[in-house]
């Protein structure tokens, strides 16, 4: 029972982690809480649904398609709503603009698709595997594996590639980086693209896992993923992963052993607690590699 809940928690948590990565990377570079990030995740879930229903593709193609779509969407949002404000407006203005984008995108989807929940068509035969006392569905395995792959890929990209190096430089000091010949606008754009792609992957997998997508799914998921990013230490990539997984597990265990009616309060309770007790999160600033 406990092990099963743990796996459920990790599955949920890996989606939080995928979303949290986008928050943390963007925050690391331009100190903005990209409030619209949850809506990008929601658009990802719908993009996957669209591909599956219309073209009958398999889950991996749907994932890649949704990721590509959200890359563009993420870059577009940055270009339209954030870049004009950068450098001349306060952080408060930027945050309010982000909230505006968030409301705009979720309402747009609600107008296009209605506010009801849409189910994902069954695109995967779900097997259940028994590993001793543990029950695992093939879907859970896919989600955990894909998430792990994406996160490892991200880590490698940040550590090994030129782009990753430029991103790390920008998160240390944007001005200095631009003096070194890095085009900060481009790096910021790429950061949005990568973060959005990861969120889209999360969206598709959550959509399939819970068999439901709806226009307002991003708001709550986004807020919780942000809590996860803070829990892990905002600006820290490994922190976002750890924070996401921890939050997922805590939430599932809280529902299983305490009460389901307070499910949504758990994440925010943790957020407030972390900010008061240890605002730098689990991966404190000193050992943090910011990106």
């Amino acid at each position, binding site marked *: 029972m406990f092990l099963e809940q743990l796996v459920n928690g990790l599955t949920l948590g890996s989606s939080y982690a995928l979303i949290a990565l986008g928050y943390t990377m963007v925050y690391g570079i331009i*100190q*903005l*809480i990209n409030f619209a990030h949850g809506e990008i995740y929601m658009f990802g879930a719908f993009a996957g649904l669209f591909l599956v229903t219309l073209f009958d593709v398999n889950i991996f193609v749907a994932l890649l398609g949704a990721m590509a779509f959200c890359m563009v969407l993420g870059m577009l949002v940055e270009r*339209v*709503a954030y870049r*004009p*404000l950068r450098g001349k*407006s*306060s*952080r*408060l*203005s*930027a*945050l*309010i*603009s982000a*909230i*505006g*984008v*968030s*409301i*705009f*995108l*979720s*309402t*747009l989807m*609600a*107008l296009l698709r209605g506010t009801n929940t849409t189910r994902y068509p069954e695109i995967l035969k779900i097997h259940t595997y028994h590993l001793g006392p543990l029950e695992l569905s093939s879907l859970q395995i896919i989600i955990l594996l894909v998430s792990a792959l994406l996160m490892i890929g991200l880590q490698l990209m940040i550590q090994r590639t030129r782009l990753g190096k430029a991103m790390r430089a920008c998160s240390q000091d944007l001005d200095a980086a631009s003096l070194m010949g890095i085009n900060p606008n481009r790096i910021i754009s790429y950061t949005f693209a990568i973060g959005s792609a990861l969120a889209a992957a999360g969206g598709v997998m959550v959509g399939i896992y819970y068999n439901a997508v709806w226009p307002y799914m991003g*708001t709550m998921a986004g*807020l919780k993923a*942000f*809590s996860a990013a*803070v829990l892990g230490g905002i600006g820290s990539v490994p922190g976002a992963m750890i924070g996401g997984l921890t939050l997922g597990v805590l939430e599932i265990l809280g529902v299983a052993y305490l009460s389901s*009616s*307070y499910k*949504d*309060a758990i*994440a*925010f*309770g943790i*957020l*407030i607690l972390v*900010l*008061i007790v240890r*605002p730098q999160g689990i991966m404190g600033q000193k050992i943090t590699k910011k990106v």
Partner: protein
Amino acid sequence: MDALLSQYIDAYYLHLMVLIGINIILVLGLNIITGVTGQLSMGHAGFMSIGAYTAAIMSVHLAFPFWASLLAGATAAAAFGFLLGLPTLRLEGDYLAMVTIGFAEIVRVFFLNFEPGGKAVGLSGIPEHTGFTLVWTMALLIIVLNAKLLNSRIGRSFYAIRENEIAAEAAGINTTRLKVLAFMIGASLAGLGGGLYAHYMTYIAPQDFGFMKSIELLNMVVLGGMGSIPGAILGTIVLTLAPEMLRIVAEYRLLFYGALLVLLMIFRPNGLLGDIRWYDFKKRWFNKGVKTWPS
């Protein structure tokens, strides 16, 4: 008085005016926190619901007199403003915003599960004690007191904190203390507005005080102009009436809100009236110098 008014004014317009009055009280509270002091609060509906539920429960279950209930609602909201403010106001602006969202969500979930508040169904049968006269008397009183406060030692220090916190400290301002004070004032006005709302609608439910309500209130502050009382009033009137006047596009209301926030931040971050002062207006209007057109 209300009976007299209802003879001459259509009930629907009267209703709208009452809503505007209540919203002005709520928005002036948020204006002090976010517009004047510069602390982004995105959980104003949370404080509002604390005031509404406290006042309503005292009226319904405990048979308290209306005024006592109203006062209790405002006080309870202020107390939560204090509790939330004290530890979290040391945080940087956008962390604070997230905490206020989290706080409002926790409050909402609490009332969803709160037996005396009728859980998800909500609380009905609240005695109707509020009408146009009372709401507008209070709104006008609060506008006057607000204007006085903002043009005083305390009000100036609120603005100073928004403009430059380090310089404010260097001028002898205990910024943490004053930010908590701003939060308490704002929360108590939200609580008061909530109590009035409950005793006007006679029915409240947790979904009346969701995240979107907080955003709507924030929009009113931002549209009118951060920190300006005439701005807050104008923003409130426009955004209370707009969805009613534009019934046809009601569905698109939130779409419009979202786009409005982005466009305002890009093109007019100070809102409609945020940086326009009576002084500048006077200077232009009563310009004594004789000038011709520039050649």
